[in-house]
Structures are given as structure tokens and as C-alpha cells.
């Protein structure tokens, strides 16, 4: 773990971004099977969800296991956003192919509405994932970035809803997200009390 912490953040960005062009190359050359559009769309979406879950795990790891990987959290968040943008682009451009149909799908198909809502929640977070924004927004930055909780929940729900029948894989992802969020409930309640306790001093 100490070794992991010594890893420079740029390495995480690099390794994290590499699958994007590699998967596209595989899709072009038959490496993703005979239906590469669906495969690429799913791969990008799944990596995004995995990055988001890894990001959600950072705080519980520190609080409960004393492992501090905080310096990688922004990279994980931005990588998740990158893969979501790619996921959306493959869906809209290669899969649905018509702008009118893209719009109709967002409004008409609950699983797409849910996924798109999650993406929109993450948009301001991606835009403020830089030191300048952290400084400028101050305490509001923290509050704003709590939007990641509903966003990941919507993402996991989107995954559960899009499969035919109730399948085990999306349910496991959903359980992981729910578990990581549940870990925060008592801790956050405690933190709130703590703040209230401190309030008169400030």
C-alpha cells in the first residue's frame, strides 16, 4: 500500500486512459466480437462505473482501514468522466445514429433518463476538478462534490435497468455502490454533530 501511494498521479491518468484508444482499436479490428458497437459502449460505461466506485472507496479506506489514497481521487473522478463522455459518444454517434432518436430516447426510456441524469450531475464536478475551483469555491466545493453520491447511484441503477431480466453482474455493482454509500451514513452524521459542536467557536 505504501508502494501504491508513492505512485505519481500522472501514472494513474496514463494507465487509466490507455484502455480508451485500445478498446476502440479492438472494436475496429474485430477484437470485440461481431457486435463491436454494443461491446465498446458497454466497456466504456463499465470502466466509468468502476472508476466511480474506486473513487467512492477512497474515503472509507482512509477512515476504516487507515489507507490514504486521497491523492488519486481526482484522477479517478476525471477518468470516470472521460469514459462517460466516450460511452455517451459511442451510444449517440455509433449506436443510435440519429440526433432526434437520441433526444427521444433520453425522454422516453427510463434507463437512459436515469443514466443521463447521472451524467449531468457529474458535469459540474468534472468542470470544478481543478485547484483553482477548489480555492475559489471553498466550502461550497465540498458540498457541490457530494453530487457524486446520487450520480453513482443513478449510474448503477442505469446498469441494473438496461439488462434483460435481473442479472447478477449489475446487481453486484449496485450493491457495491450502496455499500460504499452506506458506510458514509453514520460517519457523516457524526461529522455533522462535530461541526455543530465547533460552531460556537468560529
Amino acid at each position, binding site marked *: 500500500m505504501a508502494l501504491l501511494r508513492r505512485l505519481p498521479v500522472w501514472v494513474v491518468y496514463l494507465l487509466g486512459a490507455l484502455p480508451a484508444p485500445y478498446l*476502440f482499436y479492438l*472494436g*475496429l479490428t474485430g477484437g470485440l*466480437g*461481431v*457486435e*463491436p*458497437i*454494443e461491446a*465498446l459502449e458497454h466497456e466504456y460505461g463499465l470502466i466509468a462505473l468502476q472508476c466511480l466506485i474506486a473513487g467512492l472507496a477512497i474515503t472509507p479506506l482512509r477512515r476504516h482501514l487507515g489507507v490514504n489514497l486521497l491523492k488519486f481521487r481526482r484522477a479517478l473522478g476525471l477518468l470516470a468522466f472521460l469514459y462517460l463522455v466516450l460511452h455517451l459518444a459511442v451510444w449517440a454517434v*455509433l*449506436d*443510435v*445514429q440519429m440526433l432526434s*432518436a437520441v433526444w*427521444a*430516447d433520453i425522454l422516453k*426510456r*427510463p*434507463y437512459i433518463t436515469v443514466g443521463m441524469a447521472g451524467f449531468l450531475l457529474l458535469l459540474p464536478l468534472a468542470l470544478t476538478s481543478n485547484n483553482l475551483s477548489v480555492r475559489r469555491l471553498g466550502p461550497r466545493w465540498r458540498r457541490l462534490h457530494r453530487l457524486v453520491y446520487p450520480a453513482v447511484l443513478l449510474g448503477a441503477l442505469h446498469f441494473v*435497468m*438496461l*439488462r*434483460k*431480466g*435481473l*442479472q*447478477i*453482474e449489475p446487481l453486484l455493482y449496485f450493491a457495491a455502490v450502496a455499500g460504499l454509500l452506506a458506510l458514509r451514513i453514520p460517519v457523516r452524521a457524526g461529522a455533522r454533530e462535530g461541526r455543530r459542536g465547533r460552531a460556537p467557536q468560529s
Partner: protein
Amino acid sequence: MAGRWTNTLTRADVTPERLYLNRRQIIAGLAAGAAFGGGTQARAQEALEPNSWEEITSYNNYYEFGTGKDDPARLAGQLTTEPWSIEIDGLVERPGTYALSDILPQMTLEERIYRFRCVEAWSMVVPWQGFELADLLDLAGVAPEASHVAFETLLRPEEMPGVARPVLDWPYVEGLRLDEARHPLTLMATGIYNRPIPNQNGAPIRLVVPWKYGFKSIKSVVRITLTDSEPPTSWNKANAREYGFYSNVNPEVDHPRWSQATEREIGGGLFSKRKPTLMFNGYEEEVASLYAGMDLTENF
């Protein structure tokens, strides 16, 4: 009863060895018009370009082996398909266990190149070999009071890892109205590209109903029961709002979660264009009369 529907393509045109030839020219040279319904109607079937063997056998939905598209090709190899028999029971004159080896010599095997449209909005063209279901039903003798046909897939947990999970209520069951079952297009397939049907595609014998979504074409059939009422069907039991008993391909009736107006042909690569889905999957002339007067939005 056999031979009530033919393609304009001949078997020679779909063998993989000849795929590199200019198919359009071959087709143009073929006499148009195929016998249908006793030869009274001549119709020119549009030329269909079958998908490759690899496409047909590597991208499958066969949830008994897992829900991934590649799970069946990876895991169905262990399925024992010999010996195989079909239990034919219910409202039939000669109920019993029919060995496949006894059935086949009595049937007329034909080539049928059909469009295959999955409810998930992808499609293929498959060169099946098989016989008309009507001939098998006649072998057992359908009782006059029968109105529907129920089908059941093999359930063998030791060879089917997917059934360990309750994705569906196993065994997989399907059903047709008797007139749908007896329709000339309704096939019991035993081969693809003149080779025995691979396990992942529903070996050794499966139903093919080309104007319905793929899940109606039940695989690895072990039981056929004639009934006097609409039999339960697996996907309808799992989610009645999304999957109706009829499940006819219909571009105007969307799946609650996605549009059925267009489809993507497998094999077109990363930049494959969607194409419009055809009413009854392009078999409207042949089957529309089966549903005359029915509200297809209601009976989806």
C-alpha cells in the same frame, strides 16, 4: 406438407466456399418466384445475404449457459446432444417419446434462409436446414380440440452453468398458437450452413419462427405439448409488461425500454448503419392474415 416456402437463393449460394463470389450476380441469374402455399402464388423473395458462420455462432443468447453473448459459445460445448428425444404429449393422438433419430428420416429437410431479429434490436440472416413443424405435429397427430403448442428446452444443470442463477424460471418454455405452429414458415431447425446446428445455437433441434422476436424460437427442444389454451412463456412470466405472448416483430410497437423501429445487422463493424425494421420481420405477406382484426399494440 414440406416445401411450402422456398428462398430464391439456392443452397449453393450460401456455402462459405462461395461467399467471395458476386452474390448479386448469382441471384440475378436465378429464376424469380418461389412456390408458396401449394404453388398457387409465385413470389420473388428478396435476396438475403447470410451472416458468416463465425457471426452466427459467436454471438448468441442462450441464458442456460450464461447471459453474456459469448457465454454460449464458450460453455455450450459440454452439452450432450446424442441421444436426443422429444416428448410429444398433451392433445395428440400418438403421445410418446420420439427419438430424434426416428423423427429425422420421416421429415423432409430443407434450406431456409431467414432473417433473424432479436428483441434487443440486432439482426442476422441465417441459412437454416430443417423441416416444417407441421410435419412433426402430424407425426404425432394433433387432436381436434388442440389450439396451442407449448415447447420446453432441456434443463440439465450439470451441463448448463447458467441455470444456477434464477435469471429466468427454468426450464425455458415457449408457445405458439396452433395456426402459427402449422404455418409453412415455422421450422424445426437441425442445421446451419449444412452443418449440424452448433450447441450454442440450440443443438440438436430448435424452433425457428422468423416473423417473431428471436426468443420465441426456443432452443434444444425436449418437449412439445399440444394444449387447448395459451401456454405460459418464459419471458412473459419474467416480465409481462415487456414481453407478450405473440412477440411478433413490429417496428411500430416499441419495447418499453427501447425502440423497435430500427435494427443493427450483426457483422457491419464499428460504423454499421442501422436499418429500418420490417413489419413481421419482412414476412408480412406470408403471416399478416394470421392476425387479421387483432390489435397488435394490445397483443404485442
